[in-house]
């Protein structure tokens, strides 16, 4: 179906551009609240890409957990911590140009790696039904093959919760 294919391509490039542009804005904005809003946009665009990649469960998890959970936490902390003073201070540290240069060198290396591996990666797509009852497949895999990592992740969340509560207490 060429119409569907076209829509797929348009959606991918739209969400990709949205994600990258808002990521750049997260890093460059002066106001922390603006950065948080653009981070939400970037995460939502990523959720769109998950949907376009037939990962519907992950799409829901991304929106509920990232946008609904983690970002609310961020905005709360910004409200608790934000100083009007910090708007008028220097936003970037003194080594910013060395750091950006090194990051771009790293990106160039990854780019070369992707270029060299493009033949192995651009295989023909698999049968469309392989991922299809998405939540069922993830649930089966998670509770059969990945039971131990699942339990360890729950212990990790418990530890993080206790850590956060103890850390934010007034008297330690």
């Amino acid at each position: 179906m060429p119409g569907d294919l076209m829509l797929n391509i348009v959606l991918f490039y739209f969400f990709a551009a949205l994600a990258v542009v808002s990521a750049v804005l997260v890093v460059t904005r002066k106001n922390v609240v603006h950065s948080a809003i653009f981070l939400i946009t970037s995460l939502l665009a990523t959720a769109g890409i998950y949907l376009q990649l037939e990962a519907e469960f992950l799409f829901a998890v991304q929106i509920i957990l990232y946008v609904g959970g983690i970002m609310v936490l961020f905005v709360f902390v910004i409200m608790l911590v934000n100083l009007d003073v910090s708007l008028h201070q220097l936003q970037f540290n003194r080594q910013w140009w060395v750091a950006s240069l090194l990051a771009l060198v790293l990106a160039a290396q990854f780019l070369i790696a992707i270029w060299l591996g493009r033949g192995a990666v651009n295989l023909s797509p698999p049968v469309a039904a392989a991922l299809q009852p998405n939540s069922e497949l993830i649930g089966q895999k998670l509770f059969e093959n990945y039971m131990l990592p699942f339990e360890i992740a729950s212990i990790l969340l418990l530890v993080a919760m206790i850590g956060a509560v103890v850390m934010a207490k007034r008297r330690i």
Partner: protein
Amino acid sequence: MIPTSHYLLLSLALFTVGVIGVLTRRNVIIILMSIELILNAVNINLVAFSHLYGSVTGQIFAIFIITDAAAEAAVGLGIIIAYFRNRETVLADEMDLLKW
């Protein structure tokens, strides 16, 4: 069909922006947000390869990474609140208590 290398390029772009954010910004909250961007870029890679090979294992690893991101954000923001209460700053280069 969109080639998988385009997903890798998108992920690379997000990762690079995140690394630049971590290394250059002074505000600790924005550094934490950039770490979220990096983890998100990794997730795009995992889901793209999961789609390429028609197996949900990549998506399960993405779920574990999201769990880690939540734990990391909770603990990191707790540390920021505790530090701000004691030192009245959120700037990374003013957090030099262990430097002599």
